[in-house]
Every structure is written in C-alpha cells, then in structure tokens.
C-alpha cells in the first residue's frame, strides 16, 4: 500500500506543484519569521560582544531610588559611582585597563560633500576613545585622537561620509559646528547596523557632557579589561571579578560583575524589544498555511476523484479502507516533505535577501539568518501536519466509498450550510455588539450606558474580542453568504454577458464551502490591511488637521536629529531677518519634573499662542500671568484642574565653584609640595656635590609642574546638583490639538527654573510678514541656517508630509505584506477553479459541443473567479474598515482625533481584486480547453 502511495505521488507530481508552492510559502513564512528573529538576535549579540566588550564591569551596589518596585533590577538600575574610585580599581592585580566610556548622541557629522551625514534611523554617536579604551575596535589607519580637534572614524562612518584620513570636516555639537581633522579609522568585527560612530578625545566628550549638565564626577560604571588584546573566557572573568570584589573596600560601594552577565542581560532586553516583529510575520504564515491546507484538500479531492476507480479496484480485491486511506496519506507525506524542505530554503533565502536589501539601504547586517535545527524541524513538521490535515478528508472519502459507488463516480451533493451559517451569524452579531459597545464606551462621554458595570469595561478588550469573533464568524458564515453574494455580485455580469454570466453566477453557489474558503484567504489579508489603512489614514488626517486648522506658521524649523538641538545662534539670525514677523521656539526644559511625574514642560514665546497657533486671550493671559497652560489629556490623566498648584522641580547640575576651587587649590598645593620636596632634595644633592643628581631632581620637579599644567582641567571640576522648585498655578486647560498633551509656561518662568544649558530647542515656528514672497523667504532662511548643517526649514506642506512620513513607511510594509497575501490568494483561486473545472469536465465538454466558443468558456471561468475574489475582498473591506472605525474611536485619545476612510485605497483593492480574479482564471481555463470535447463528453 505504501508502495502504491509512493508511485501515485510520482504520477501525480505535476498536479502537486501548486500544493507544493502553497506549503512552501506557508513554511517559508514560519521559518522566515524564525530566521528573522535569529538574524536580529545574532546581530544584537555580535554587537554586544564588540560594543560592550569589557571583561568585568564595576557598578554601584545601591539600587536607584526611583526604580519601580517589583520590576527586575537591571545593570543600569544602580546609583552612579564616583569617578575618582577608578584609581583604586586600577591598582588591583590583573586589571590592565579601567575606563568609563561615555558617548554623545547629539552630534551630527558633516560629510566630504559638505552635507550632514544622515541615516534612516541608526544614531550618530561620538565615543570617547583613546588607546586601549575599546578593545573591540581596531585602529586600521592613522592614530587615536590626541587633540580636541582630532577624530577617528569607524569604517561605516567613513564609508557614509566619504571622508579619508587627513581630511578636515565639521562636527555639529549642541553649541554649533567645530572643525575637526580625521586622524584615523577604526573597524569592528561586525557591522554597527548603520550607526555613524566617531571617536573623540575623551576630554572633549567630557566637556560636552558637562555643558549638557551631566555630573562628570559621577559615572554609571567602569569597564575593566584583564587583557589588552584578547577577551577573557568566562572563568577568567569570574576570577577577576572575584579578586576586584575582594580587594575593593566595602565603603566604596562598588560591585564587580563579569562582562558575560552584563552582555547576556543587555542582549536579552534588546531582543525582547525586537520580539514584536515575529508575531506580525506569523499572522501571514497562518494565512499561508490555511490557504495551503485547503489547496491541498482541493488537490487531493481532484486526485481522489480521478483515482476512484483505482481505489475501488483495490477495495474490490480486498484492500481495507485503512489501507486505501494510507495510500492517499503516503502521497500527502511525500508532498509535505518536499514542500516543507523547499519552504525552509525559501524562508532562509528570503531573509538572506532582506539582509542584503538592508545593507543597500545603509543598515548592513552581519548577523546570520541561518535557522537553527529546531527551527528547521518546526517548519518541516508544520508543513507535513498541514498537508496531512488537508489530505485527510479526501483520503477518508476515498477509503469509505463503497466500491460500486466509487466505480459509478457519483458526486455527493454538498451538505447544507444553514446550520453553519447560523453559528457564524451569531458570532458575527456578537462581534458587532462588542464593537458597538467599544465604540460607545470610548466615544460616549461620561455615562455611555446606564449600567456602571459595563461602563468600566475596557474598550480595548472589547475591540480585540469582537475582532476575533468577527473574523472567525465571517469565515464560519462564509458558505452561507456565497449564495446571496453570488446573486448580488453576479448581477452585473449576468446582464452584460447573459449566458456566461448566468452560468458563472450559478456555478459559484455549487460548492459553497469551497468558494467561501477560497475567498477567506483574501478576506483575512484585506481585512488586516484595510483596518490599518483606515487607522493610518486617520492618523495622517488628524496630524494634518493640526497644521491645517490652527497653525498659522509659514515655516517650521526642525533639527535633523531629535537629540541635536537647533542652535540659539541660528534662531537669533533668523529673528533678524526683516521679513520674519515672529519666531516661536519650542524649548524643552530638560530635567524638570512636575509633581514628581515624568511630564516634561516646555516654554515658548507668546507669539506662539497669540498669532502662530491662537488659543484665545484667556489662556494667553494665564501664561502672561506666570501660570501654566496644561493640555486636557495631561490634565485628565493626572486629575488636574484649573487653579491647582503644580510643583515644578528642576534638578540642575552646575559647577560647584567652591569645590572646584578647592580641588584646584589642593591639586596645586600637592604639586607645589612635590616640587618643593624635589627641589629640597636637589639642594641637598647639590650640597653633597652630586651636581648630576641635583640636576635630574630639578628636571623632575619641572616636569611635575609641567604635567600639572597639562592635566585635563575637567578632571578638577567638581559639579553639584542644584534643585530649583517653583509652585506654578494652572491657569488654563488647553484642548487645542497642538497643546493637548503638553504643559507650557512662559519664558521668564523657564529662565528662573533652568539655566541655558538645560534647555533644548528642537522645533521652532516662523511666521512671515504679510505679503512676503514665501518661496524666496524659505530660500533665504535655508541660506541662513546652512552653516549650522542640522537645521531644516520646512514649509507647511513639507511639514505635513514630514509628520506623516512614518505612517507612509509603515503602510509601505503593509502593502508588501498585502502583496504576499494576494499571491497566496491567487494560488487558492487558481486551485479551486482547477478543481471546479476538473469536476465539470463533462459539463464543459457539453457546453463546447453545443457551440460555446473558447472565449465564452474563458469568460465564464473568469467571471466565476472574479466573483470569488471580489467576494473575499468586499468581506475584508467591510470587516477591516469597521475595525478601523472602532480602533480610531478607542484610541482617539492617542491622537486619532479625526476619522478618515481612505476610499481611494478601498476602490484600489476592489480593482486589484478584479484583476486578481481574471489572472487566476487563466490557467484553469487553459486546462479546461486543453481537454478535447470528445474526451469530455465520452469520459465515463
């Protein structure tokens, strides 16, 4: 029996091609999602190994006060430690290098072409580098930075900026651009995912940290190398950590831990952050496998139908039903194995391509997407199981049909779909009710329903459960909808093509389950995409509305990177332009907390609320009176009302003049004492007649003084935290969309709260004087900010599209996924039509015999196919748009203020689905027409 199954598989192999493609695609998605995770994980752990490559890390042993209780305490959750303790660590045996590496993320590198080097997302980092401080980096050319104006470039940065050793360029720091000389290049064993890494002299990094108000005498930890060239193994790391822990005094409050443990922790948390991608891919894997399983079921139904006589023969010579079942299942297993193996390779290949593609886009990956053996195994098992599930029903038909019935080849009429229809209907109704409830609860004000118990239900959950019920319900209800849908959708073809249209419309309703299953693949794909389409479109409209409805600014100044502020000098220059009426910078007040929460207030010029985005006199007056204007979303969240007093607390890090003076004096005294001692010794030596010895002592003394002069002054600067608190009354609650999640105060108050260095302007609005040529002014402004490299001048349209560019990117990815689900759906339709054609061989032969032309047969199948795909698409659009509407309502507080249904997209889906239907009918029609009329009518 197994041999018969294997032989049949060989004979039917051509038939199986479509099933194999379907299984391969499904498995490819499953394995692809694993591979994607594997690739990212591999990349992340490679980067951790290079970028956090210390053998031992030393950190404080006191958990931060603001660490949330009950959550995991990570490496970064400990209090900072004093930098001076580094000297203690350095003395310990086995410690070859100690450093506290810092980096600046708010810089921009200017490339060889004079433009800022921008990336699609990866950051630009300036790392404090000196010889030995980063073991993972190898100097490939030149030397390490020895002066403040010298930099080294990572290979990726050099490639992106086209800068070479010896070139002079600029780096834009928070206080403006500085001329820098490239003195070397470094490389790391793995890619940095497109990050632009620049090495600076540590003293320069310290300077800017200080400017930014970071406590430079504190650090989060030290990195210790036990070997300057090769990483220590786990055992050696542990030994070194133990030794450090044993020798460090308890009073230092330091703990040494192995590098591996830190890397593992960081790798884990990064991988967790990236984990969301896999379920998304899995949804499409499930669609593919669902379609795959019924493509297989269809294929096997065809094969079984055509081989019925063979099975009947087997049965009549004594084969048991189980044996016949087995012959079919053996075929399925062969098919499953072939499809799964291809799928694994396909999934792997796709990821290799994605890796290559990301390299092209400036995010080179060195992580390997090769799936692990267990991933391969899971993929293959999934493929085989799905195949067996798909084949088991037809196999059962083959096995239990009585031999004579099998010989006579009667087609059993389809079971009625009414019961299934009712079940689906009830699910759909419940789903809709939940959605309506979710909509009402989130949109209906304080008391949406008379029942308080229901009012407390979470709309998000209602939405989710409702969506699940609806999707499954529609799939269950599907077969019952086929009849009516065929009639409605068939109306047009019925009237345009009287004969073929009518035949096609009636054919649709013949195998309702099959038609519905075929349409289901499109349904799910289209539902997901049209739901997200509505959400994305609503996001866009909501954002654009802010600009269209209230914003009177003609231009918006934006910083190229979120972390790099717009230089004050640039703002001053723009203000001096004669054609500029007003300029309102949005100033973030760093380090200021309100009532201990994490809301960060901002300050701005009155022109912002007066003319650029008018909010009404009352609110302006409140601001002028030194009161805060609070967005209604923030107010609701915290339960604040007008008249409440908020405690603004600014933690400013300032140079402790006294301590610094003392430290410098102490240092000076120390040096003087040493020099004096040396001089005394020299005099003594001179007295004993040792002139050479005295000379060397004097030189030593000179050198000590000289060294003291060269010492990094930053090392002697002592900072202190200065806390400024202010009670500010809430003067107004703003529901204007630009301000509804912000807290604003006037600039005078801001000056009192925080010093210059703790403020950051990353956006500013510009209003031109009336009658000014805006195009010319924009060019003028662009010229003005050119020397600052990082400031962009956007007009209104550019600003709007910059706000929605993220949304567009997300939509692009979704359309790619939609394309995949369409491809899968095409396979499904092709397969179903092929099965229909095979079942209707005689009927088509008859039609041909009585004069139906080839074009008419093609037309008939084309119309059937189009009805099927449009049916699925319309169901998908209805459910998807419905979901989008409810999602919009539920998340209206998160900025989805305006509902917008992208009708053009929806019409686009319908048009695409018509083409998909026509395309899918080509192959089955060819097959139907290939069969000679005689064979068709005389086959018995």
């Amino acid at each position: 029996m197994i041999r018969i199954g294997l032989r049949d598989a060989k004979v039917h192999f051509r038939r199986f091609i479509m099933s194999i493609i379907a299984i391969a695609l499904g498995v490819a998605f499953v394995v692809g999602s694993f591979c994607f995770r594997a690739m990212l994980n591999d990349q992340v752990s490679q980067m951790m190994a290079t970028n956090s490559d210390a053998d031992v890390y030393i950190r404080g042993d006191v958990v931060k006060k603001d660490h949330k209780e009950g959550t995991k305490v990570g490496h970064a959750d400990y209090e900072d430690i004093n930098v001076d303790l580094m000297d203690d660590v350095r003395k310990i045996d086995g410690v070859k290098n100690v450093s506290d590496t810092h980096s600046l993320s708010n810089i921009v590198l200017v490339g060889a072409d004079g433009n800022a080097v921008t990336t699609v997302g990866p950051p630009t980092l300036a790392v404090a580098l000196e010889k030995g401080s980063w073991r993972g980096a190898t100097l490939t050319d030149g030397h390490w930075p020895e002066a403040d104006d010298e930099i080294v470039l990572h290979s990726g940065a050099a490639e992106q900026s086209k800068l070479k050793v010896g070139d002079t360029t600029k780096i834009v720091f928070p206080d403006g651009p500085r001329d820098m000389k490239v003195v070397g290049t470094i490389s790391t064993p793995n890619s940095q995912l497109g990050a632009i890494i620049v090495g600076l002299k540590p003293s320069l990094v310290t300077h800017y940290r200080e400017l930014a108000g970071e406590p430079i005498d504190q650090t989060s930890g030290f990195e210790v190398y036990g070997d300057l060239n090769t990483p220590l193994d786990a055992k050696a790391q542990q030994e070194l950590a133990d030794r450090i822990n044993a020798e460090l005094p308890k009073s230092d409050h330091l703990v040494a831990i192995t590098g591996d443990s830190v890397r593992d922790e960081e790798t884990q948390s990064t991988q967790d952050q990236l984990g969301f991608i896999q379920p998304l891919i899995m949804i499409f894997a499930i669609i593919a496998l669902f379609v795959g399983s019924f493509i297989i079921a269809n294929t096997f139904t065809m094969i079984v139908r055509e081989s019925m006589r063979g099975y009947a023969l087997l049965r009549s010579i004594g084969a048991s039903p189980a044996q016949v079942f087995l012959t079919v299942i053996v075929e399925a297993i062969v098919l499953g194995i072939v499809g799964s193996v291809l799928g694994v390779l396909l999934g792997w290949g796709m990821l290799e391509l994605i890796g290559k593609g990301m390299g092209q886009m400036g995010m080179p990956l060195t992580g390997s997407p090769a799936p692990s053996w267990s991933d391969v195994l899971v993929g293959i098992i999934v493929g085989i199981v799905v195949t067996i599930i798909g084949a088991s029903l037809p196999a059962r038909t083959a096995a239990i049909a009585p031999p004579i019935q099998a010989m006579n080849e009667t087609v059993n009429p389809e079971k009625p779909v009414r019961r299934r229809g009712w079940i689906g209907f009830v699910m759909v109704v419940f789903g809709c009710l939940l959605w309506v409830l979710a909509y009402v609860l989130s949109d209906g004000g304080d008391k949406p329903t008379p029942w308080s118990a229901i009012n407390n239900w979470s709309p998000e959950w209602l939405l989710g459960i409702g969506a699940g019920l609806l999707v499954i319900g529609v799939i269950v209800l599907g077969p019952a909808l086929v009849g009516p849908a065929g009639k409605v959708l068939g109306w047009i073809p019925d009237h345009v093509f009287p004969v073929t249209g009518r035949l096609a419309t009636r054919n649709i309703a013949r195998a309702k389950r099959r038609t519905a299953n075929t349409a289901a693949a499109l349904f799910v794909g289209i539902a997901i995409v049209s739901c997200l389409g509505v959400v994305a479109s609503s996001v866009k409209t909501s954002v654009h509305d802010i600009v269209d409805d209230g914003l009177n600014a003609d231009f918006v100044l934006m910083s190229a990177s979120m972390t790099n502020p717009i230089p004050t000098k640039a703002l001053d220059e723009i203000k001096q332009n004669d054609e500029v009426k007003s300029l309102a910078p949005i100033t973030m007040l760093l380090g200021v907390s309100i009532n201990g929460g994490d809301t960060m207030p901002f300050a701005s010029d009155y022109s912002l609320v007066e003319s650029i985005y008018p909010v009404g006199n009352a609110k302006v007056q409140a601001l002028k009176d030194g009161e805060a204007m609070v967005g209604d979303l923030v107010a609701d969240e915290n339960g604040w009302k007008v008249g409440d007093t908020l405690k603004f607390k600014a933690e400013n890090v300032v140079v402790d003049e006294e301590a610094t003076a003392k430290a410098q004096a102490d240092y000076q005294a120390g040096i003087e004492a040493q020099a004096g001692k040396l001089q005394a010794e020299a005099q003594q030596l001179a007295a004993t007649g040792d002139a050479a010895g005295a000379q060397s002592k004097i030189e030593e003394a000179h050198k000590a003084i000289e060294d003291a002069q060269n010492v990094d002054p930053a090392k002697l600067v002592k900072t202190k935290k200065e806390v400024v608190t202010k009670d500010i009354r809430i003067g107004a609650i703003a529901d204007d969309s630009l301000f509804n999640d912000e807290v604003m105060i006037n600039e005078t108050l801001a000056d009192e709260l925080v010093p210059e260095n703790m403020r950051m302007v990353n956006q500013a609005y510009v209003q031109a004087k009336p009658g000014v040529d805006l195009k010319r002014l924009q060019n003028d402004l662009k010229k003005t900010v050119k020397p600052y490299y990082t400031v962009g001048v956007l007009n209104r349209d550019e600003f709007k599209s910059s706000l929605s560019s993220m949304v567009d990117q997300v939509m692009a990815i979704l359309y790619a996924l939609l394309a995949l689900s369409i491809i899968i759906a095409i396979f499904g339709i092709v397969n179903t039509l092929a099965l229909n054609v095979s079942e209707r061989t005689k009927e088509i032969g008859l039609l041909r015999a009585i004069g139906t032309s080839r074009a008419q047969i093609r037309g008939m199948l084309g119309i059937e196919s189009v009805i099927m795909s449009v049916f699925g698409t319309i169901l998908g659009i209805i459910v998807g748009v419905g979901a989008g509407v409810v999602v919009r309502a539920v998340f209206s507080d998160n900025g989805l203020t305006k509902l917008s249904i992208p009708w053009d997209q929806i019409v686009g889906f319908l048009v695409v689905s018509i083409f998909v239907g026509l395309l899918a009918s080509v192959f089955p029609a060819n097959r139907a027409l290939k069969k000679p009329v005689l064979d068709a009518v005389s086959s018995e």
Partner: protein
Amino acid sequence: MARSANHHSPHASMDGRNTTDPVVARAIDLYKHYGSEDNEVVALNHINVEFMRGQLTAIMGPSGSGKSTLMHCMAGLDVPTSGTVLVEGLEVSSMNQRELTKLRRKEIGFIFQSFNLVPTLTAKENILLPLQIAKRPVDMDWFNKVVDVVGLANRLDHRPSQLSGGQQQRVACARAMMEQPSVIFADEPTGNLDSRSSREVLTFLQQSVREYGQSIVMVTHDPRAASFADRVLVLADGSITNDMDHPTYDEILEVFADHHDETVAEELAVGPNGADGAALAEYAEVQDAARRAARTAGSANAEGEARA
C-alpha cells in the same frame, strides 16, 4: 456542394430545407486508427457513406465496431486519420476550433447518452442555451411547439436534478431541435432509459423527422431503438456490413443472428427469446433488475468489508 452554409436561415429547414442536395452529411474514404504501429486498432476502415436529408438514420454494431467513432468523426468531435467529412458541403475534417464552434452553432445538434444538461440551468434555460450562446434570436412560437411536442410544458422551471432520466433526455431533444440544425447526432440517446421513456424519446425523434424534416443520425446498440429509424447501418470491424431501408425489428435481429455476433447475441440472451415487440419492455425490466442486483451485491459486499 459549394453552397455556403451562411445562406440558409434557421427557418429554411422547416419547409424542407434546401433540398437540391438530398445528402446532408457524407463521409468519403474515412479511415481512423488508434494506437502505435505494432499495436494498431483500425476503428474505421475506409468508409464511404451518405446520410440523407430528412431521415432518421441509425448506426448499429457491437462494441468496438466503430459506430461511435464514425459518429464522432461526422460531428467534428474526433479527427479522422484520413478521409473527408462533409456536413452541408462544409469540410468538417479540416476545420480549426473557431470553425468547429461555428459549425456546432449552426449545423449540428447533439444528444448524448447521459449528462446532456447543464445542472445549474432550468429545463427552459437549457433548451434556449444554444441560441443564447450563439446570440441568435429566440423564435418563441417554435419554442412552444417543441416544448409541446416533447410534453414538458409544465416542467420548464425545473432543474435537471428534479427531472427523471426520460424527462432529461426529452429536454436534450428539445434543445437539439430548438437550434434547427442541419443534422442532429444522437449518441445512444436511450442507453440509460427504461423502455417507456425510450419509446417517448424515440417517438419524438421520429416525429421531428416526419413532421419537421429534421435529419438525425443516431448511434445505438438496441435493435428496438433502431427499428424506429428510416435506415439502419450496421458496422462491424470498422466497415459497413448492412444498409437496411426501413427494417423491422425482426429483420434487424436477423442480421445479428446471421452474423453470429456474440456481443449482441449475449445481450439478447439476457432477455427472453421472444422476438415480438412486446418483449422489449420485459427485456428492459430484466436488464434493470440485473443492474439493481449487481448494485445491491456490491454494496452488501462493501458493508461486509467495512464490518470486517
């Protein structure tokens, strides 16, 4: 012979059609073989035959005699190895698909043994289907007449699955008649019917020949069915062995007895040896009973196996 088919209107046939050529279809030196050279089966061995206008011609012969192949070649369903087929002077044997479709729409009607109707269409829709496919106008008077003759006036809105075998076959006849083709080819039209339904169908065919001048070529292995024909051709091993004009049932039986044809003899042996016309009903009944018995035995067998 050179007359173009495009010239005659559908109505021309009602008043006896273009009678200048009494032959509606002819085969000239028709040869057809299957299989490879060392395993050759000759189905048609250089046959020359003319089918007359306004006649019901029956083609008889045992299985494998080539009777179906002859009809299929005449109807353009099969392509002969060599020789020529002419229907209304048009050379069917050299036509491409497009020309064949045109031919089927205008000149040829079909009635098959089984599966004659499109299951999704009602009886009326099935009858009108050929005209609609060809986008030809429907002559409702003719339709009513045809429906009346086949006696289906009250079953027109039924689907094929709601009709008996005989009714289905009569719908098929009506459909073929509706087109008023030059010639109707009927392939064992009564093969699946009981004797009563058979008689109804055959009577209808006879009537359409006599009253409306329709030309019909019918393949059958049933001598009783053949006895309805104006002319009976008997085929054996790819050649025409007998050409009988208005033979009686007995004469037909005799031919087979003369030829000691085993297949037909066997088939006849199933029924009682009575050679009178009344025996047909009984014969058919017995055949049906035998078929039923075989089916019961088969399913009993299957159940037995399932239990084992």
